[in-house]
């Protein structure tokens, strides 16, 4: 049996989920034997090839992230999302209480560390969506691992199950939203 091809995508997130993924200790050796990492922060490959498993961390907060999620969904057989942001909107959704304009103004103009700031408007940079959304609001998701961040053992459980051909749902006693 060949290696399982995996591509990851880091959207609106803080890197906590990636840290947790690296925190699986010696399981990373088993993982490396069973899985071929294609696009990921480790390999620095930019394009998504056709893969077996797609993995997303983070919410969808910009149009670029929306497109990326759709592209990965199209190229993977199973899509797994990690962390509260990807599952529920999480930290990123805290901005949803305010209109997009107010959020941008706060970040680029009113922020204490900014002098003579202006809201960037170049067509080359992604556009902030009105609300930060969980991934399943944009594309179909097959497997969810919540947690802020998900603990290494949750990720290990989910990936082991996937490698054995099962779609995992975290058991009640493993579920954590914080």
């Amino acid at each position, binding site marked *: 049996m060949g290696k399982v091809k995996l591509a990851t995508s880091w959207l609106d997130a803080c890197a906590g989920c990636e840290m947790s993924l690296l925190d699986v200790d010696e399981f990373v050796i088993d993982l490396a034997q069973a899985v071929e990492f294609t696009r990921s922060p480790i390999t620095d490959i930019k394009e998504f090839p056709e893969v077996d498993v797609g993995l997303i961390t983070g919410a969808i907060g910009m149009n670029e992230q929306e497109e990326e999620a759709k592209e990965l969904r199209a190229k993977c057989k199973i899509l797994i999302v990690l962390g*509260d942001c990807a*599952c529920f909107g999480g*930290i990123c*959704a805290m901005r949803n209480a305010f209109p997009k304009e107010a959020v941008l103004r706060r970040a680029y103009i009113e922020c204490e560390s900014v002098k003579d700031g202006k809201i960037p408007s170049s067509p080359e940079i992604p556009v902030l969506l009105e609300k930060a*959304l*969980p991934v399943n609001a944009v594309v179909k998701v097959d497997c969810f691992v919540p947690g802020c961040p998900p603990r290494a053992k949750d990720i290990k459980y989910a990936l082991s199950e996937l490698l054995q051909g099962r779609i995992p749902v975290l058991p009640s006693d493993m579920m954590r939203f914080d």
Partner: protein
Amino acid sequence: MSDRKEITLTVNGNQVKGKEGDTVLQLCRANNIYVPTLCFMEGLSNVGACRLCVVEIDGERRINPSCTYPARDGLVVRTHTPNLEKYRRLILELMFTERNHFCFFCAASGDCELQAQAYRYQMDHARYPYTFPALPTDTLNDFMVIDHNRCILCGRCVRVCGEVVGNHTLDFSRRGWRTLIAADLNQPLGESSCISCGACLQACPTGAIFSKVSAYRGRTSEGKVIHSICSLCGIGCEIDVLVKDNNIVRIDGANLAGLKGQLCLMGRFQQVYNENQRIITPLIRNKKGDLEPASWEDAMKLITGKIKDYKAYYGASSIAGFASSLCPSETLEAFVKFMRNTIGTSFIDTFDGSGYRAVIQGISTFSKNGKGLEIESPLESIMDADCVMVVGSNPLETHPVAGSYILRAKTQKKVNVIVVDSRPNTFGFRSDIYLRPDNGSEAALLGALEGLVAKKTKSTEKSMRFISLGRAVEKTGLDKDAIQKAAAMLSRAKNPVIVYGDGVLSANNPKLIARLLDLAKLANHDGLKVISLKPRGNSRGAWELGLANQDGMAKIKPKMAYVLFSDDTFETGDWVDQVGQAEFLVAQASYRSQLTDCADVVLPSPIWAERKGKYVSLDGKVGHSQKVLEPSSGIKDDVEIITKLAKGI
């Protein structure tokens, strides 16, 4: 209730028994059948708000909430079918998407019932679009925050505020999905009629209402819960103290919806955190006049030496001892022995001793058969009364839980409440009749009420001397009608209870207390129902130990004073001047205060959480408080200090 008919139901294929009048949920719980709930709370009314407790019942077209479904003989109920579980998960997803339930920055995470249910139903995502409403947060109360973003509108706070606290501050505002919990007419909580008892906070299943003094300091699973009693005011509420790393995280009422379980702002919040400066080592005043840390040996030697000196030069009665009735009986007993037997002085008192002497004199004027505090009624008699008269007290300020009993009786049983106080008293606004006689004329008012009640009930005793209505009007400055209305209300009642408090106890007027007792006896058909709201957690215990029965205490001028202040905050009374005039002052205290600032020697004393002992509640019930914290190494137990001092003399 035991004569209710027994009924048999089939739940999940098994025969279970219950009583007619039970709800299906009650019956399931009694038979250890788990049904998930969120809006249900033991002791509160059932409203069926959350729909998590739905069950299938044969013959019903739809699934029904078990908390509001009356159990009937022969019902066939199923509590856990795939269909029900599907709906329960759906309900949870709707709750999570309706508002902003993000656990990672929530004070309740780990102790949240909504979160626990989501874990239970493996709710790792929601299938519905999130509404992300921008809801306000009310932070104006000193101790509590209401975060509407985390509210599931279960209404437990509304029900506990109305049904248990009797305060009816919280209610729902607006309609449908726009509904918000509101205080009064949509005021911020801190500007509302809220008495900050925190019952709503304890009832809240999520982080929608959380405590400013406990948030983020630890979860229940990280600490240890110690069951104890609150020793502050003499009601003796049962508390569960959550302790983590030798710190108090949170104090909960042990039985929120029952009696003595709701707690008040003092018991629930103020005991958790205060900014007073703790005394952790003995202090001796040096030649420059400053207090300086000293060893236990030096401090004890100085005290025993001074006691011997004063005894030798001026006699033992030049030394007086004052003790806080916040201390447990064991400590007070040791103190009495030390002062009376070891030193040999009879001048001992509690800070609230003058109140006791007035009560005892009042009782002996009222009946000459040598009875004492035992003529008073248990606090619960308020709940059975048909009229409550509150004299010289705002129970919501001094004894909030007693205040709640009165408000509950008033709102749930339509019991009439009369408030008599010469001071401005906001409890008067909660009453049916609020009489505010001129200062010092309360006895005249009571005398007139006696006369009017006696005329109506035709029960009188020869020894009683009433005051005419005309004279009472003249003395009290009150309206004639108002006095007559109050008298009529008292006469209509069969089982009225009179509750009196600090206004009467500090008036130093035994006649007023005798009048109260006379009136109570005349008005009540079964006997005498009187409750005095004693100021401290162990006032009654201290008084029963004879700590406060020395006559003429107010006149003595001690040369040396020993004050067992502990963690008290009492700053009024005759004793303050007496202590201030003493040449040599020893203070055994937990915190720096005005008292320790003028003391010559200060010994550290444990606070309530660092000691255990017996407490006698204001209605004479014995309770035991537990040690919940380990004191720091410099602090010794009060009894140990007193015993050591006694050995040194």
